[in-house]
């Protein structure tokens, strides 16, 4: 068995080394990455989209439909999780559920580690600032809505771990919860329709210089919606893991 495992590792490693040896040199201008659509993005991207960050340009303009559906996929994941019976658990009925309930009771009985409590409290403001910076700078530098969503979501989950779920759940206003969870797809649809009205193409962004402010506003609204909606969904996915009924 060990011989077989060793042979398997060697074969896989050799295949990978051979594959890597066959790649074009790093930064080779004639490499396949640079000779197809990538070159077009780099040469024409700023002029065609009016966006300064080409990653944002590809994400929101060239592949706007893809990004739209990604946001919908994240929302659908939440809907699927919430549709599972255990996520909207009523008072315990079966043995599994009473076992889960007693596990929750012991969870509550275990005090939060003071080390974890201190470190999370210490880091949470920095995490929040980092998320906002990544969102705010996202249309110029690396970063943006999705990264910001992951960071805010992680912060909410960490806070939920040390302060308790009820406390963390209060970060999301109860009345607006469903709207916030659907914020990404909703705002994306609205921006797509506005783009349609302005440019005649669904999800179109006005690219001319005169529409600079409008274009920036649309992008920022979209990024904020992706960040807030994504963060709320990530946090809710975690809360739904073993939500108190």
């Amino acid at each position: 068995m060990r011989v077989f495992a060793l042979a398997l590792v060697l074969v896989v490693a050799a295949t990978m080394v051979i594959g890597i040896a066959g790649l074009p040199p790093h930064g080779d201008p004639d490499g396949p990455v640079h000779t197809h659509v990538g070159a077009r993005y780099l040469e024409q991207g700023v002029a065609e989209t009016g966006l300064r960050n080409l990653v944002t340009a590809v994400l929101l303009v060239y592949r706007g439909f893809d990004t739209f559906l990604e946001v919908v996929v994240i929302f659908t994941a939440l809907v699927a999780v919430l549709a599972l019976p255990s996520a909207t658990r009523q008072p315990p009925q079966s043995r599994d559920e009473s076992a889960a309930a007693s596990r929750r009771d012991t969870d509550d009985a275990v005090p939060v580690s003071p080390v974890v409590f201190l470190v999370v409290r210490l880091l949470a403001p920095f995490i929040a600032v980092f998320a906002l910076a990544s969102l705010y700078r996202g249309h110029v530098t690396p970063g943006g809505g999705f990264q910001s969503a992951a960071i805010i979501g992680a912060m909410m989950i960490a806070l939920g771990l040390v302060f308790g779920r009820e406390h963390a759940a209060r970060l999301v206003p109860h009345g607006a919860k469903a709207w916030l969870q659907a914020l990404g797809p909703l705002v994306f649809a609205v921006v797509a329709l506005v783009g349609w009205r302005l440019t005649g193409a669904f999800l179109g962004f006005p690219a001319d210089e005169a529409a600079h402010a409008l274009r920036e506003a649309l992008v920022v609204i979209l990024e904020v919606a992706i960040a807030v909606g994504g963060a709320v969904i990530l946090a809710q996915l975690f809360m739904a893991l073993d939500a108190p009924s």
Partner: protein
Amino acid sequence: MIGGALLESAAVALVVIGVAFLLAGTIGLVRFPDVYTRAHAASKCDSAGAGSVLLGLALHDGFAFGDLKLVLLAILVVVSGPTTAHALARAAMRSGRRPWPRDEGGPA
């Protein structure tokens, strides 16, 4: 120029030390017998390994404003790594996971 060479040597030494820690930590993670020893290996690997690689990179090519980010990143790694290991080990202990016995006669 002597100063530059010294700085460069320090940077390379830090990166080499960091890589050695990362290697040892990775081997430990695979080879150690239970959750506590593995958490120990993995957190050493994170803090000492990634920490000194980051500091080495900050020293590399002299100081620049961007190096401050690497130092902050090193601080973050040194703070968050041990915390994670602590939380893991604590959770394992709370859930009744016994530490690996030193010899076969020890508590199983």
